[in-house]
């Protein structure tokens, strides 16, 4: 197996702005890459180009040395040795579970006995051994998803693609399936590409997270790195889970900002400072009498704490947590322990 390489890939659909613009990235063998972005950002188009359902208008996609597609030629999906879990599961309703899972083997003309063995293994890996003779219509959503996963397992594909596979499942099932995916990745060692708009899903599963917006790749890094050091307003908004303040900062400044600096930027900015966006996470907004005054906009009880939305005096909003009950329209004082310049 070999790394998957996207080299300046661009894809346009006739009129309008291209869906994917000049996107380059390399996924090393055995990695688990999450493509994260809001809907319409082009992440699904990237996935479909890797699968071979769409051809790039420009640029190239390679698996190691092998050219999969560029603007002129392309290897059709049926010759790529990839597998995909679709958002709609894409199980064939007229085949049984075992036939669905075994179909790639049947097409590849694997000997019957061996194929049966492999189907059995794949089904037991997703704990569906006893469902082999059922039809997809008789299964629940989570079970269908696992059948689709088992279908990916049987052929030992070079790359496994997952297109928002958890979007149609309820919250409880999602956690269970995340477990299954991690297990699947560890077991198969396949390179996996996972498209999602849910940052917590991406963080929890992937070894690498690539954030996309408007057809461009904004940042690619490990989940820890991207959480700690997001680049730019869009990435900050997607993965930050915090509030973004618009502040004026001195021109050469560290990216990690402490309370004295934030306070100065908020209260006494000096003429000539440049405006910047600063990400402030709720756990860094501490209710403290020595801080700045803020008004409570809303307060929700989440179980172990209250989640607050606050408004500073200049009208910018913040998010915070509180152990004590706070009511909307209350006045509080907050200290911003830490901020990250985007």
């Amino acid at each position, binding site marked *: 197996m070999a790394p998957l390489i996207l080299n300046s890939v661009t894809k346009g659909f006739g009129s309008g702005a291209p869906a994917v613009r000049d996107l380059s990235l390399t996924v090393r063998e055995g990695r688990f890459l999450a493509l994260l972005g809001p809907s319409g950002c082009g992440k699904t188009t990237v996935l479909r180009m890797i*699968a*071979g*359902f*769409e*051809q790039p208008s420009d640029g190239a996609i390679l698996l190691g040395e092998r050219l999969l*597609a560029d603007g*002129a*030629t*392309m*290897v*059709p*999906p*049926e*010759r*790529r*040795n*990839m*597998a*995909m879990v*679709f*958002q*709609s599961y*894409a*199980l*064939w*309703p*007229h085949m049984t579970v075992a036939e669905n899972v075994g*179909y*790639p083997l049947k*097409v*590849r003309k694997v000997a019957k006995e061996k194929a049966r063995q492999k189907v059995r293994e794949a089904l037991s890996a997703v704990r569906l051994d006893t469902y082999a003779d059922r039809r997809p219509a008789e299964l629940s959503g989570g079970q269908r998803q696992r059948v*689709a996963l088992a*279908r990916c397992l049987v*052929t030992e594909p070079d790359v496994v693609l997952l297109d928002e596979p958890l979007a149609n499942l309820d919250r409880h099932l999602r956690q269970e399936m995340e477990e299954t995916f991690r297990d699947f990745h560890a077991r198969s060692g396949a390179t996996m590409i996972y498209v999602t708009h849910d940052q917590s899903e991406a963080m929890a599963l992937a070894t690498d997270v690539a954030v996309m917006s408007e057809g461009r790749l904004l940042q690619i890094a490990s989940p820890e790195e991207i959480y700690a050091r997001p680049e730019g307003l869009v990435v900050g908004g997607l993965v930050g889970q915090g509030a973004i303040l618009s502040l004026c900062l001195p021109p050469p400044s560290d990216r990690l900002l402490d309370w004295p600096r934030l306070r100065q930027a908020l209260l006494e900015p000096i003429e000539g400072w440049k405006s910047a966006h600063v990400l402030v996470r709720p756990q860094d907004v501490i209710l403290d009498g020595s801080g700045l005054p803020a008004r409570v906009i809303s307060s929700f009880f989440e179980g172990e704490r209250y989640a607050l939305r606050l408004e500073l005096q200049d009208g910018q909003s913040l998010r915070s947590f509180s152990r004590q009950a706070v009511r909307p329209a209350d006045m509080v004082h907050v200290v911003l322990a830490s901020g990250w310049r985007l």
Partner: protein
Amino acid sequence: MRSSVRSGNSQPRWLFPFVVIVVLVLSVLPLARLAWTGIVSALRGDAGQLLADPALWSATLNTLTTSFLGMIAAVILGGSFAVLLTLFDVRGRSALGFLFMLPMMIPPQVTALSWIGLTGPSSTLLKAMGMAPPLGSPQPLYSVGGIALLFGVQHAPLVYLAMRAGLLSLPKEGVEAARLSGASTLRLLLDIVLPLAMPGLVAGAAIAFVSGVGNFGIPAILGIPASIYTLPTLIYSKFASFGPTTFADISIISVLITLLAVAGLSVEARVLRGRDYRTIGLSGQAAVFRLGAVRLPVEMLLWLVTFIILFLPFLALLASSLAPAYGVSLNLETATLHAYEEVIFRQSVTRSAFTNSVSLALASAFGLLVISVLLGYYIVRTKSRTAATISAMAEIPYALPGIVLAVAFILLLAAPLPILGFSIYGTIWIILIAYLSSFLAVSLKPVISAYRQLDPSLEEAARLSGAGFYRRMRDVLVPLIAPAAGSSIILVFLIACNELTVSALLWSAGTQTLGVAIYNLDDSGSFNLAAALSVLVVVMVVVLMLILELMARRLPGGALPWRR
């Protein structure tokens, strides 16, 4: 397949050329040839003689009159059935609806024959009941009014269907809300139902008009004996008395019919433009108004009308077919199956007509199945203007009156084929090609709607599993569209088997179809044989429609023409 192909789509290279050839042969070439001959003859001045012929103008007038009056009858019949069966709590709605749809699928010449058997001095049924008018009194249906009446009966289902679509989209909640705010049933009908029903009514009226313009079977049987010609029967009679200007004449008349049909259809298109019948939200179940005290009388009226337009003519047909000889009175002793014996076992003409029609219908149904599966795949999977154009071209022949299509194929195929050097004119093959052209849209429609309902990822998953085009077709696509494909086979078989208009111009000795045989038997005075053959046809139609009806739950919406 090579390991590297040029584009990212899922179609094999030969699919596009195949699609283009199909559409060229079945649609573009015959129509272009027709238009070309029409224009050339008009420019050469051949048209002068024809245009000076009063027969042409009286036929045009007859066509317009019968189609217009027929349209009004169809609107009254179809419209009231649509409103009553869709919106009111009439019992037995599905049975009534099915019966009301039957005339649409029964061949027009059979409808005409059965009504002749019902009225006039020589009606076996009336005589058996002692109610026949005196001999020598005229057959009332041999008139413009008679033709219009039967147009109305034959095309009422079209109006019914067009209106039902609009009425079904009536939101139940909206009606209930209006009720709560104190609106009476009458107010509701005027304010909510009428606006929803109007576009369907106009569209249905336009379709009924156009169908009347193109109808051949009814004016052929009712009009020709009384020398009342419409444009389609004028073409037929010009063709029968073949002369040097025949090709020019029939091409010009065909263009005239086409213009009338297009005028009707463009009215429909204008009315329907920008209207979306799809229901918003989950509704789709029509609101039901209560009829209250008048429910029983209304139900009785509906059944009475159904009895008059459906069962009574059929009884007359049955009576005629059982009569010992034309005009001899029928009772339990004289009833005989002689006519059936004759058409099934003795008459070589009817036996070969059975063989011809069944083989033509089977060949059309299965040939079109292959074409539709491939063409439908191309149309659904290609997102370009070419695909839209091809889809439109494939629809045109069905929208055209059959007689026009027959003329187009005569003009195209009368001369020897290029390269091959022989002509298929006069053989059964020209009928087959014309059938393939005429019923392409019938076969394509269920298949396309089945493809559209299919989640594209089902095919994509098969591609990633390594399955090439043929493999995917065999293992995934065809099994999934099988119910729709099955209905398309039965539909085409049903329509092709009973077809008269196209084969009336294209048949020659040895290649007559069932439709032609019925018409010729009637024409030569063997009314009881024609009736027997018609009874068999009606039984076949009903059986096939019932099979389709049983399949309906597994079919995509819009697959069956009588269920939208």
